[in-house]
């Protein structure tokens, strides 16, 4: 079983998640979503820590650009994801295990697509080597 962690803004993406549930859309149980008040609340430490704790992939889901309730939280989140990606490359884990997505409240299908996308990446990259060691 894969372990994919998603930090999900409780506003646009959170509503998309609720809508996905109402519509009976399903995404893999490999994906654990953690709701945060804004994607801008997530920083590099949260992202790196998830990998150290064995996550095979991590995603951050923010509102569409220009739609952030906190004005630029989603843009800050993207910068932090980019910085964390650089660190993942430097330590040798690979930046493609981490991704930032932008989702609006009326895009529940995107949640399902993202889960598939990250699962497909883990399938081609293999599991997190640290999780294998455990």
């Amino acid at each position, binding site marked *: 079983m894969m372990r994919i962690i998603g930090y999900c803004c409780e506003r646009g993406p959170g509503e998309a998640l609720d809508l996905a549930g109402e519509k009976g859309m399903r995404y893999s149980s490999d994906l654990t979503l953690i709701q945060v008040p804004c994607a801008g609340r997530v920083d590099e430490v949260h992202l790196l820590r998830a990998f*150290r704790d064995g996550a095979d992939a991590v995603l951050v889901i923010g509102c569409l650009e220009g739609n952030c309730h906190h004005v630029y939280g989603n843009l800050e989140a993207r910068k932090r994801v980019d910085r964390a990606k650089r*660190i993942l490359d430097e*330590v*040798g*884990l690979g930046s493609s295990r981490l991704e930032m997505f932008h989702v609006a409240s009326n895009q529940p299908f995107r949640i399902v697509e993202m889960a598939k996308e990250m699962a497909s990446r883990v399938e081609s990259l293999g599991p997190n080597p640290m999780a294998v060691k455990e």
Partner: protein
Amino acid sequence: MIIGEQKRLDEIAGMLEGQRRILVAGCRSCVAICLAGGEKEVAVLAESLRLLSSLRGKGWEVEEATVERQCEKEWVAELRPRIEGKDCVLSLACGVGAQTVQAMYPKVRALPGLNTSNMGAPEEAGIFVEKCGGCGDCVLHLTGGICPIARCAKSLLNGPCGGSQGGKCEVSPDTPCAWEEICRSLESLGRLDLLEEPIPPKNWLSARDGGPRRIVNKEAVLSEEQKRLKGGKA
């Protein structure tokens, strides 16, 4: 403020080779402002090192601590319980902070996590520019508040060189010509007359050319008796 930037992770990892118990020590002053060595940067670097250690089996035990000013003994003293038992301190302060840690804890290696660059200021978010050359003989009153020592690539004292093109320095199109800026500033201050006065050759003995500098404020220096009364905390 002092401007610095973090060394590359692989360079830091190279310095930590053979160490086990590591304290990443930050500073909440200048290097926090320039986003190189404050609490946030300490947390990110410490987590990166833990990740690297887990992946490559380095066996590092990484702790983190940040003090108010790593250049002052009083604040660095707070690190004592955190430093005890460590093999090294990876300092994310400027070179002054790293040296203060080394001087106070001579049995623990203090390693520099930053490259200390210059004395400058934030120009805009994320951009930090050198402003002062620390020459020890300030001429800002003659140059419209713009330092020709730090901001002119050639540290010229009496006008621009031939490399000044369209207000920019020939060294880089991102670098304004300091003398262009000096003229504009003096014009705005209504003191273009200052340009008529040649600035004489500078005495560089007050700069680094005179060796390491030491400033003594006699009134502030404690007598041996005062030091004793303060319990050696002076």
